[in-house]
């Protein structure tokens, strides 16, 4: 097991800057997600760590060891490929046994060597020794694939192939587990159950894991910490709650969950709170503005909504419901306030009626949940 440190990593493909000074410090045993839109450099980062790409500049450490000059096959990073990259000519058992066979090749005499090669080419050619048999079966039991040991990988479902890929990587007892969008080829339902499976295995084994995804929900629900990437840069790194409650840019606010974002300017202080002038009303925020001109970020679920005559307290804004939409267990309102359309999410409670379009409503926001960026 080991930590992973990436320092000033730069990768250039003739002229194209794929990575632009990436810095990461991943703790031992951590489940770390690299999140970002397609083309932002997630795969490239991962391939640099695995040793398939030579960094243009920068250093990579696994544990205490600098690995820049260590070839890919000696880095002991288990990788789960997006396409799974299973060996089509081998069955499930021999796929999982591959790394064990490689180790066998390194330590034994010529007779065993030939037998091992034979097994790796075609399982009918030679039998596996008992210790490999035992270990592979243990892993297969663990990922619930034992009954499929003799199947070719092409005869498995997507979810099963995914588990073979995972089992194959785990069999080598890697220092780090690298997963590149491992769930993107699965349907939605399977994806949710695989999330749980992967997270459970990771916690069980305590293995340092780097997980690449473009799906914020996946990253936020699984990872201990998340690095959000954009155009070859890590633009924010933190726990899911940190990212969610304290996004450092509108891009992140938008990417990690939908937000209301308005332009405004700070016109004064009210104790610890900044007063921000928007078009037609003011709003207060506890966050500290960097400039006078700011972007105000409010998450839809942090806004309370009530009918005109009901309740509220400070910072009440008046508006009119334009539309209401059911999003599963929540109701999303689009509320018109002056020139703005504000998204508001409330949990749907059966029995409670939904405000119809045209209804006059009042909105309240806790100043602690108004972010100024």
């Amino acid at each position: 097991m080991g930590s992973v440190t990436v320092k000033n990593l730069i990768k250039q493909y003739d002229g194209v800057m794929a990575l632009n000074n990436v810095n990461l410090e991943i703790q031992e045993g951590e489940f770390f997600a690299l999140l970002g839109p397609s083309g932002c450099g997630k795969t490239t980062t991962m391939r640099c760590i695995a040793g398939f790409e030579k960094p243009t500049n920068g250093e990579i450490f696994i544990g205490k060891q600098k690995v820049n000059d260590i070839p890919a096959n000696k880095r002991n990073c288990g990788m789960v490929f997006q396409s799974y990259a299973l060996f089509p000519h081998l069955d499930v058992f021999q796929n999982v046994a591959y790394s064990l066979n490689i180790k066998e090749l390194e330590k034994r005499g010529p007779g065993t060597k030939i037998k091992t090669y034979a097994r790796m080419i075609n399982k009918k050619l030679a039998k596996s020794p008992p210790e490999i048999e035992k270990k592979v079966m243990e892993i297969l039991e663990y990922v619930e694939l034992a009954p499929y040991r003799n199947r070719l990988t092409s005869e498995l479902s997507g979810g099963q192939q995914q588990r073979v890929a995972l089992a194959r990587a785990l069999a080598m007892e890697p220092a780090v587990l690298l997963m590149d969008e491992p769930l993107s080829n699965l349907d939605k339902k399977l994806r949710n159950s695989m999330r749980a499976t992967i997270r459970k295995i990771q916690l069980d084994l305590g293995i340092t894991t780097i997980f690449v995804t473009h799906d914020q929900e996946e990253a936020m629900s699984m990872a201990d910490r998340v690095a959000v990437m954009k155009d070859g840069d890590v633009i924010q790194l933190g726990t899911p709650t940190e990212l969610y409650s304290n996004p450092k840019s509108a891009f992140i606010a938008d990417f990690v969950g939908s937000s209301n974002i308005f332009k405004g300017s700070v016109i004064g202080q009210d104790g610890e709170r900044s007063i921000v002038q928007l078009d037609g009303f003011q709003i207060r925020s506890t966050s500290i503005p960097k400039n006078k001109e700011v972007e105000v970020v409010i998450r839809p679920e942090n806004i309370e909504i009530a009918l005109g005559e009901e309740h509220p307290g400070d910072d009440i804004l008046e508006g009119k419901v334009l539309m209401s939409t059911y999003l599963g267990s929540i109701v999303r309102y689009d509320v018109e306030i002056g020139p703005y359309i504000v998204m508001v999410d409330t949990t749907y409670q059966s029995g409670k009626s939904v405000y119809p379009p045209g209804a006059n409503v009042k909105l309240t926001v806790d100043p602690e949940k108004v972010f100024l960026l």
Partner: protein
Amino acid sequence: MKMLKRFDGHSLIKALIVLFFIVFLVVPLFSILIVSITGVPINVFGSLVDPETFKSTIDAFKNSSLEFYKSIASKSGYLSALMNSLELSLLVSVVVVVMCLPIAYGIARTKMPFKKTLTALCTIPLIVPTFIAANAFIVMFGRSGWVTYIYESLRGNGLLINPSSMIGIAMVQVFFFFPYALWPMVAAFKLSDITLEEGSQNLGAKNWFTFAFVTMPLALPGLISSALLIFTVSFSDFGTPIILAPKDLNLIVVEAYREIAGFFNWAGAAILTVIMVVVAAFFFCLQHLFTKGKSYGTVSGKPKKQKIIKNKWLTRTIAGYTCLVVLVLLLAMISVLLQSFATTWGVGVLPDGYTMANYQAVFSSSFENVTNSLILASGALVLSVVIATFVSYFVVRQNASKLDFMTTVPLVVPGIALGIALIQTFNTAPLQLTGTATILIIAYTIRRLPYMVRSTVGTMRSIKQDIEEAAVNLGASRLTAAITVVGPLMIPGIAAGSILVFITVIKETSVSILMAPAEWAPMSLAIFQNILRGEYYTAAAMSIILVVLVLVLQAIATKLSKGDA
């Protein structure tokens, strides 16, 4: 450091392969071009190591001129040879396309009776070398042929068709080259846009109208491309004319062969070689231009369902017509088969008597030719497997487009031309290889490598790079990954390619006849010499052995490719 070492290993192999092509393909073609303007043989490799030779090469250059090309115009033999060859190829390509039209349409678009059987029988020509086919036509249509016998007893005297004439040669080529056009034409008919045809029919057009004004124009690029392909194949064919061409019919391949094998006229042979390569390359490129722009747009789209025509009258007519074509092929092969068992076959429908003596003769006195063929083909196979595997690795993994191009060049060089170029280049020290089995194997390899490379490149492309990376990620070195992952996955492609190479080498005529030394004479050369000596019955027996051998190999190949699919 490690990176550097790996880089070196790879580029060393790459350099060796490029060197192989330069030495055995580029330099020979280049030096034959020089010979065609200097008029005297030159020694390129000698000039590199020996100053004396270098000087004489320079002297030869000083005397070079385009005189020899001008002499083509004056020396009527060459010009008429070229014109005759072009005429023959034009005739054959047009007739083939016209003849194939109904068959291709029938296979692609109708539910004609016996479609599977007829389709299978249409591949007979692919296993029969043309010189055997030419000989079969003599057995049928020649002066004492059985068709002639029937014709005479019905109609009086004369020949139905004279096999030893332009028409005879064209007929053999038409019947034995048509499969090369048939499959592309079937594809063209399958691909043409069904929605347009339906549109036409919705507008109330009659079937024949739709065929003539919608289906045909859509399939036309495919048809033209097929015609151009046949043109090149016919132009380069040596087996048919060498057996059938009469003294007064000059054809460029035969003329070139005579210049070199009969008169050792280097200048003449060189000029003819250059002309052959230029013509073949021109038509090859023309054909590729034609197929390039037209990708038919259906490959990536949704599969469109084509209407299969079931009209009984139409399908039966097409099937009947296809039967007639196939019947000619079958009769030709049966004629050779009967001849191989004949004691003698004078004038008559059937041989005068039957015997195994011809086969006994082959097995007792010429069995060596069979083993020679097998050994030479195995040599070419091993060499092509090694080269093609590396080439496909470089082409697919490293985008080596120049190498890719170089391996397709042999496609445009007619066998006789390649043979003449190699003989000229390796005639003298320091690289004296002419008359050895080595240069013969190399010639076979170069000629068939494009097919092998196509097969292995296809397989290599289907092996995604991440599978190889997965192996490395799991601890395997590049070499171990190659042995345990890439290797096993390459086997189907290599196997398919090797059998193709093996078969085509056994069938190979031009290079064998031109280059094989007596002690390494393969079957094709032995058959050719038997025919020249008038030993028709042993020639027939050996022909049958050759065809059966090819047939068996083909069956193995089909079985292998099915097993993998």
